[in-house]
């Protein structure tokens, strides 16, 4: 079980958090102007990376804030946490 450093609360047990899938996928501003394929790309396609992955988490049993996290899926090391809207601190 990880220890996650919530950007608002500090270090907490993983059991207080919930994962929310791949980060930095913005909801299209004008969905009606997208083709089926373009919409499907947003709706269904997600990466499942072996290695460094950018993902969304929410401190669901805490401050209930969403934030982003950079995690190495091979060893669960968390390389960064940062607030929504911020640029990833790691490439």
């Amino acid at each position: 079980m990880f220890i996650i450093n919530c950007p608002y609360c500090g270090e907490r047990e993983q059991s207080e958090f919930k994962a929310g899938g791949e980060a930095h996928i913005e909801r299209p501003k004008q969905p009606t102007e997208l083709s089926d394929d373009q919409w499907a790309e947003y709706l269904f396609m997600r990466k499942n990376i072996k290695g460094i992955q950018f993902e969304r988490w929410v401190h669901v049993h805490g401050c209930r804030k969403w934030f982003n996290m950079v995690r190495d899926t091979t060893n669960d090391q968390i390389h960064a946490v940062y607030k929504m809207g911020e640029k990833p601190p790691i490439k």
Partner: protein
Amino acid sequence: MPKNLRINSSNFIDETTRVSFKFDGKTYYGFKGDTLASALIANGIHLVARSFKYHRPRGIMTAGSEEPNAIVQINGNTAYTEPNVRATEIEIYDGLEASSQNCWPNVNFDIGGINNILSPLLPAGFYYKTFMWPASFWEKYEYFIRKSAGLGKSPTKPDPDLYEHKYIHCDVLVIGGGISGIMAAKTSAENNYKTLLLDEKPHLGGTTIYQSSEFNKINNQYSSKWLEKEISKLKNIKNLEIKTRTSVAAYHGYNFLLARENLTDHLPLNKKKDKIRQRLLKIRAKKVIAATGSIERPLIFNNNDRPGIILSSAIKKYSDYYGVVCGKENILFTNNDSAYETAISLFNKGIKINAIIDIREKVNSEITNHAEKIGIKIYNSYTIVDTSGYRRIKEVSIMKLSKDGQSVTGSKVKIKCDCLGISGGWTPAVHLFTQSGGKLKFDNEDNVFIPSKYPSDQISIGSCNGEFDLNTIIKNFNQNIKNFLGIDKTSFEDLKINSTKEILKKNIWLLPSDKAIGKCKPFVDFQNDATAKDIKLALREGFRSIEHVKRYTTTGMGTDQGKLGNMHALGIISDTSGVKMSDLGTTTFRPPYTPLTFGTIVGRNVGEFFDIFRKTPMHDWHVDNNAEFENVGQWKRAWYYPKKGESMFDAVQRESKAARDGAGILDASTLGKIDIQGSDASEFLNRVYTNAWSKLAIGKCRYGLMLNEDGMVYDDGVTTRLDENHYIMTTTTGGAATVLGKLEDYLQTEWPELDVYLTSVTDHFATISVCGPNSKKIVKKVIPDLDLSDEEFPHMSFKNAKIDNIKCRVMRISFTGEQSYEINIQANFGKSVWEKCMDAGKEFNITPYGTETMHLLRAEKGFIIVGQDTDATLTPIDLQMDWIVSKKKYDFIGKRSLYRSDTIKEDRKQLVGIVTEDPREVLEEGAQIVADVSKKPVEMLGHITSSYFSPNLNKSIALGVVKGGKNMLGKKLFIPMKNKIINVQVADPVFLDKENKRLNA
């Protein structure tokens, strides 16, 4: 008890306290401190089990948690029964009852033993190959397999014991209380680290604590004496907590570990009572020191599994620790020096050693020379080619090994014995290290996998790190622990160590015999009866990956996870396939390290504490009025209120009729309520619901449908505009938490620019719904000041009001199709207002109704229940609710998905009404709907989602989803059931009052 099997008294056995126990129905005696295994051996009993597949007689093989054979069931048929208990771990207590597993009728005469004779027919993969074909026969095979195999019996009664969970945070966790662990714990605690030391055994000290040998001395004392003093010093150290009988089960990432603390298993029955039996420790450690030791390896040779064949180190422990002799005529068979320690120790106690058989050429180490000097017969470069003795080993046959160790030469020598100690070297216990994500490396010299890359702040020390002699252990300890703890010095740097060093190593994974391998039984996994032959067969049949070989042969898949034989399996694969050990890797060690009881895992979360349950403010009233309850999410909801002698059907029919004829009252407090405020609240609702919200006037209510981004219906409910920038949203009971979570997600991540605040207020309000033609009169009596006229307070509107000066919100909304009022009041007044409504309604026969009646009433009106009539594959269009989807709005969640090529298909499943030809016939929910039963396979068009007998229409009604159902109005379809086919017709889903006259009646 045969006295001569107990030798010199031991520090660890209390010979003044005799303990009586039963094994296979017979009473025996042991002493306090004995394990079941040591007590049985003291009584001359070695045969304790039958093997899993061949039902071969098996004896106690080890003295620890790695035991593969001596697995027993304890406490018979009582609620306290437990299968798969290792006899080598359970400490005896007065009243303990244990019995053998895997044998019928008994361990000495076992019918399944016939499998041993049939064994040429039972090779690896036999079960897969034979019993899987033809598939229809599986049921028949299964009966026999289950009867003759299986590991013990599950308890049939609830577990009466108490368990609990405990969190522990520490700076340093030390796993293992052998010499390395004790030095580590002492050093850590003395350097101001809050330290926790755990050991699975009842006493600290590991194997060193009974090591009284000239060849292992510290500061000129026996290492046992030196360690004893060190242990006694631990008591005075602050910062140090010690837990024995505590076994680490799992080592997860970020130094999170689970351990089981055994508190009462060693106590007599009368002392166990009312005490916590086992405790699951959830440990978060900043640093972890693994001092988990190593496990002695067996040797793999023909017929190496007879009772009386015991690990050499276990024989030593039985004699040095428990004071019990395993045999009177002993032979040791080894590839390393440690068996010589056993031999010398037994010899010094006057126990006969018939021979040491060493596969190595003549060795010139201090300890081997000593063994020779005292007159022990040593056969160098010999191997055992066979053994004999059915219920106990009687004799071994040995032959000279060829130069390359692959075959045997010369003539056979037979030596008598009643106990054979075997030692194939040592396997570092790296299980926990690998569980934590650590990577191993292979050491070619010792043929061991040892830790190489640590995934967290941890270190392995002592023999689990591949350090086997005392000198190396202490030297490495001082160096490694200083680095690890960031300290300058330890108190163990000036120790004077005498220890022997092994100078000749030789390893043969599978020892040759004079017989062909096909005629031999060299067991690799004793618990699962897998032999070297099986592994070779698997390789011949094309299995390459170690994980596949494991599953095909079942090697390492027993409750012991192959702690003894896994390395040999790898070795044999490596030798046969030519792939280097380092390239093969090991199979994955999975938690728990030793089996855990379910009780430990669930702790206190049993019975009423299994899950949280939520009660409404009126719960006690429902209980007092005989309600049956149903679980909706975590809520207990009143389901129906049977009167004396009423069935559920009767009660629901009565309640449903009363609600439409007079008045009904429902506890709707469980509906999710979300308070929405902010200057962008209307815009927010526009984006999350399919319909438009900007023009909803203050004081009005509107029904809304919420979709997922994929266009599928997600939740529904009525939202009320309380003020310009203030709404109260209701959600389904089950969806409340996920809806709030989803809305928060959008607000925080997609639309942070919106000025909107969400607050869950589900628990703040009690909600009482009064419905029926008399509802207005009843509410008027309860809130006389409120103008309830249709002009002032029409359907779908809301008023603030007061009951006895307590503020409340009244909504005129309806889920039944009747005129109804929903009173929302501060939760703690819920029950008294409910009672007020009951009093006021008495003259109108107000009838409390539960969720079942609510479901029936809404089905008469064709209202959906999200999650019952929908299943995340239905769009609003599929539900024939096109009217609620705004055409004008530019965007809302899920809008774009409503015209994907798939969602616009005409033949999607669509919600329709279904009526039966026979109006008395009530369909089963979930029943399949078809158009043509003659054509096979029958095409399934859909299924029934809701079905009731409507007392108000006096006929059966149902809702269902049907492919292309929208265009099938009036069409005849069929419901094939087990014994009949029911004729039905597609109908309008609104069965009652299509014109909505009753809302204002």
